[in-house]
Structure formats: structure tokens, C-alpha cells
């Protein structure tokens, strides 16, 4: 009986703020004192035990699971290391430990700019407020190692006075402005996705606007679809890197989660990211948002089943079936891309001219852009399966056409048979094939971790 009394009391109980702090407080523990439920669940993103068929918070070494990726990214840092993302607690640790940021040491700069911190920490808005936006991005990544010290936290998504959701990153606001949209006018439900869209989006570093600054930019001026973004890059003459085998002018897609999600059924029904990845939860009569941001497959009851009455198994299968059907063809596209790169490499070897290669290389760029756009968002196959499938199919077509042209060109150059498929059975073989000296890279990084990182705490 006393518990009934207690539980009726809960209904009228509310928290009163205990702690005062500023908007730029980067330490989530400070915010957390006022909001213990949210804070406790937020800390759970450090749990790495859940693994679903293709996702989850356990680390997947993507290059080991699929060594073709190494060849697709030959000449680009992604070929050295690429893991599937895990919980927000690891954002900072992972950007420091990845080979992609290199091994800065006294007198030796990181190959990456400070822009790489942009989506990893609430110190970012704080520093931007202190120094200015461009000034923050400026310089190599190692130069702010001592200043960016808190992983993704409350200040990234919340207003400190009202605890309303807010946008802390200029790139998103700027992208809205350039599209003629006002981000302050969006609905509460849209905010429940837009806070994620600060980071879970395709981006590039615009180096043309401000001398010496890799300015974080979302390429949405012509729209957020795969084709519109490609058109944007084409019209800006933008290229991420030149492929080291085929010499194709490549684009890299990074996690276009928000963009693709919008093309799916759930978005069209007004469902937001938080509905699945941060569902509401009630403890007693206290309702709060589960801040353990994670794969909904680890929490089907509170995410999917709020809207769907099917059994857990069935809902999980829904997700897997879509992922499988998509990945089957994405894998084929990957193979075609490996072939295209090595065939183009062969053509150069046999003396092909720039003008003979031009159209072919553009075909490869476009095909791989499609592959990457579909693959880089780890939720795409479920978020928007039909659009993702459309993108994959159009990539297969482009790769096939490029290979027909390559076959004709190779024949002209005197090579009229198959170009052998490289032996890239394992990540190690693939990295060797593209000419990486992994031992050296790993050794350097170990030095960095041992000598430099401790000073960044």
C-alpha cells in the first residue's frame, strides 16, 4: 500500500535546479547533476557490448570485414583505418586513435585540420564562441588537442537555460540559410532530428572561401538528395582526392544519415531520429528521454513497439531483411568498382591519354559516389530502403558503362582480355596491394598515443 501512495506522489514531484552553469559548460557531469536520469542514461553510451547483424555499438573493423574498401579508397586516409561508429562516449577517443588523423609529434603536424574536431565535443561551440568560427577550423588538428577534451555532451544539443533543444553548430545553420530556410522556425518534432543533423550528415571542407581554412560545409544548396549533392560538387569543381590507381577525381561521402532518412517512410510520417534512437521512457510517473543513444535493435520494446504491435523478432527481421537485400547489390557494386579502378590503372600503364580517360574517370567518380552515399550511412538500408536501392542500382549502371568503355579502350591499347582481379582477400593484402606501409603507420601512431596523447587530457 505504501508503494501505491509513493507512486501517486511521484506524479506531482518535479526537479528544481541544483546547479548553475553557462551555455558553454563542456562538462556533462555538471549539467548532469540537475538531470540525473538523463545523465545516467547518457553515460550508458559507453557500453560496447551490443552487436546486431550489421550494426550495434561493438566495433566493426570495416576494412577487415570488407577489404575491397581499401582499394576503393586508395590514396585516401580512409584506406588506413575505418571502423563503424560506436557510442557518443567514444567520439573523442576514436578521433584521437584513428590512423586517419596521423601521428602528430613536436615539429610534425597532423595531416588533418582542426575541422575534424567539429563533431566530437561540446568544447567546439565553446571555442568557437571564444575565437570565432573560421579561427576555430584553422590550423592542423594537433594544434587544438589540449583544448578539446570532453566527448559529445549536453551542450551540443541543449540550451542551458530552458533545456530546449538547440543548434550549436554553425555549419547546419549556414546550410539552412543558403537554402533560404530559417532554422529558428522549425517545429519541435523537426528539432528532434535536427540536433542529430549537426553531425550525422554528408560534409566537405571548403578551402576556397577563406585562405588557409578548411571550412566545414554541408553541400545542400541544390537539395539534399544524392543527385543534388553530386550536382553541387560538380558545379563547384570539387574533388576530395585523386584515386591512386585509376587517377579518377573522387568524392567521399560521409554518413549522410539525415539526408537519406528524409527520403524514407518514417520521415514521411513525421517520425524523428529521437523517436527510435532516444525513445521516451517513464520511471514512475516521471517521463524522460533515454539518452543512451544506440541501435534501436537493442531497445525494440521502447522504440519500435510504441508504434508497431509486432513481436520483437519480427521487427528485427524487418530490419535485417532490408539490410540484406540492399547489401547484396552494394557488394556487387563494390566489386565492379575495384575492377574499374584496376582496369583504369592498366589503361594508364598501357599508355592511355588523358582525353581517352576523361569520361571513363568521371563515370568511376559518379559510380563510387553512389556506392559511398549508400554505404556510409550505417542506418540507410533501413532508414530509406527504396531510395538506397535506387542509388545502388544507378551506381551499378554507371560502373558497368565505364567498364564497357574501358574494355574498348584496353582493346585499342592492345589488351583484349580480363584484367586480373587483385588478391585482396584480407585487409593486410589489400593495404599492401595499394602500397601502404602499415607497420610504419602503426608504429608512428603508437608513438603518438604514448607520448603526445597523455598531454591532451
Amino acid at each position, binding site marked *: *500500500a505504501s*508503494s*501505491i501512495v509513493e507512486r501517486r506522489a511521484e506524479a506531482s514531484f518535479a526537479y528544481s535546479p541544483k546547479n548553475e552553469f553557462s551555455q558553454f559548460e563542456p562538462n556533462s557531469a555538471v549539467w548532469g547533476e540537475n538531470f540525473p536520469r538523463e545523465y545516467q542514461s547518457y553515460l550508458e553510451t559507453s557500453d560496447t557490448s551490443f552487436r546486431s547483424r550489421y550494426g550495434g555499438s561493438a566495433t566493426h573493423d570495416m576494412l577487415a570485414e570488407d577489404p575491397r574498401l581499401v582499394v576503393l579508397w586508395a590514396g585516401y586516409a580512409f584506406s588506413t583505418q575505418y571502423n563503424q561508429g560506436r557510442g557518443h562516449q567514444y567520439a573523442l577517443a576514436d578521433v584521437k586513435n584513428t590512423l586517419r588523423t596521423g601521428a602528430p609529434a613536436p615539429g610534425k603536424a597532423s595531416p588533418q585540420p582542426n575541422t575534424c574536431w567539429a563533431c566530437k565535443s561540446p568544447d567546439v561551440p565553446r571555442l568557437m564562441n571564444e575565437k570565432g568560427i573560421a579561427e576555430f577550423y584553422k590550423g592542423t588538428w594537433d594544434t587544438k588537442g589540449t583544448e578539446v577534451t570532453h566527448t559529445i555532451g549536453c551542450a551540443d544539443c541543449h540550451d542551458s537555460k530552458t533545456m530546449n533543444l538547440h543548434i550549436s553548430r554553425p555549419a547546419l545553420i549556414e546550410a539552412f540559410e543558403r537554402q533560404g530556410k530559417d532554422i529558428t522556425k522549425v517545429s519541435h518534432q523537426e528539432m528532434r532530428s535536427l540536433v542529430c543533423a549537426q553531425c550525422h550528415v554528408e560534409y566537405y571542407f571548403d578551402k576556397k572561401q577563406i585562405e588557409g581554412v578548411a571550412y566545414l560545409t554541408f553541400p545542400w544548396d541544390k537539395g539534399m538528395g544524392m543527385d543534388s549533392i553530386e550536382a553541387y560538387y560538380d558545379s563547384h569543381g570539387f574533388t576530395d582526392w585523386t584515386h591512386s590507381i585509376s587517377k579518377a577525381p573522387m568524392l567521399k561521402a560521409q554518413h549522410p544519415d539525415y539526408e537519406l532518412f528524409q527520403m524514407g517512410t518514417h520521415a514521411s510520417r513525421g517520425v524523428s531520429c529521437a523517436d527510435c534512437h532516444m525513445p*521516451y521512457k*517513464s520511471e514512475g510517473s516521471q*517521463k524522460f528521454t533515454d539518452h543512451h543513444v544506440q541501435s534501436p535493435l537493442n531497445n525494440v520494446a*521502447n522504440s519500435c*513497439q*510504441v508504434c508497431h*504491435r509486432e513481436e520483437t523478432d519480427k521487427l528485427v527481421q524487418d530490419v535485417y531483411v532490408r539490410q540484406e537485400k540492399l547489401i547484396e547489390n552494394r557488394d556487387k557494386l563494390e566489386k565492379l568498382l575495384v575492377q574499374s579502378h584496376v582496369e583504369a590503372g592498366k589503361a594508364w600503364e598501357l599508355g592511355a591519354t588523358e582525353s581517352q580517360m576523361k569520361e571513363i574517370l568521371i563515370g568511376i567518380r559518379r559510380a563510387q559516389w553512389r556506392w559511398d552515399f549508400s554505404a556510409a550511412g550505417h542506418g540507410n538500408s533501413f532508414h530509406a530502403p527504396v531510395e538506397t536501392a535506387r542509388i545502388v542500382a544507378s551506381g551499378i549502371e554507371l560502373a558497368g558503362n565505364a567498364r564497357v568503355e574501358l574494355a574498348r579502350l584496353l582493346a585499342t591499347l592492345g589488351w583484349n582480355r580480363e584484367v586480373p582481379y587483385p588478391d585482396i582477400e584480407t585487409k593486410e593484402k589489400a593495404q599492401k596491394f595499394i602500397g601502404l606501409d602499415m607497420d610504419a603507420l602503426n608504429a608512428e601512431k603508437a608513438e603518438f598515443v604514448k607520448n603526445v596523447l597523455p598531454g591532451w587530457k
Partner: protein
Amino acid sequence: MKFIRYLIPPPAWRFPVILALGIFAGLFGFSFYVSKAWSYLSDDPKTCVNCHIMAPQYATWTHNSHRQYANCNDCHVPHNNVLNKYFFKARDGMRHSYMFTLRLEPQVIHIKEAGQRVVQNNCIRCHENLLTDEPVLSQTLEAHHNRMDRQCWSCHRETPHGRVNSLSSVPYARVPLPESPVPDWIGRIMKTKK
């Protein structure tokens, strides 16, 4: 009489037993009062909302066309005979209060199979006229059974609770609705004015 005598404790125990029974009765009465258990015997939907966790269902029901015609018990309790009605209620009530008190309730409540059968029969009970077609009925019964063998709400998915269903899905709903939108004091002032 003999049988009652078995139940009477030996003299030495009498006082503690009476005390225990008293406390027990008192606690029972208290629980009965605090949880408004008496209201279980009524058909008033507000009964169900005694438990705040029934709020989503209450709120959605009040926004559905059925609120004028069907209360919770019209759907959720058997109406084929009176005994069955109270038996079902008692059994359900026991489980619900047990789970509620022990905080075993899930975030998202799912209706059980037995409950589904009850609801289905109640849909049919009220809508039977619509579901039967005289010319067809005069030829064959099967078509009518066929029409009723699927859960009505597999098509009428929004009837009557809508589709989004979780303890936290209707946070701001007024549950239960105020008795009257006119507060007492206004009534009083208006009366005195007259």
C-alpha cells in the same frame, strides 16, 4: 460448526491473531481506499485511470468517436453473461494491481490474447447489424463467420486507441477530464448575482 471450530486458534494465540487480523483488515481497507479499489466494480472509465499508466488508453479513447457509445468495459469485459463479466474483471484486476504495485509494468503495454478475444466479441456485439447482410444471410452463414474471424482492429487500426502507444505517448493529456469546465466558484458567484 465443527469445521469453524478448526479455525479458532488455541487460547494462547487468540490475542496476537486478533491483532494480526485487525492489522490485516486495516491494511486491506487502506489499500482498498487509496487505490480506489471499489471503483473496479463500476463501469466508469475513470476507474481505469486510477492507475496513471492507463492514461494513454484513456486519452486516446476520449478522442475517439467511441467515447460517446462505449466505455472501457463495453469493450474489455465479456458481456455474454454477468458472472463471466465479474470473473474476468476480478482476474484482470488482480494481475494489474499486482504488476502495478511491484512496478512490473512494461513501458509499452500489449493486450493479451484472452483480452483480444473479449474485445473482438464486443465489437461484433455492437456492430452486428452492419456485419450481416440479409440477402447473403438467407443463402449462407459462412460469409458472415468469415467476415468476423479477423481482428477488427487489424484494419481499423486507429480504433479506438490510435497507433502510438506507450506510457509516455500522451504526456499532456488531461486524465481524467475535469468534471465540469465551469469551476464551482464561478457557479457560486453567478448564483449570488442572480
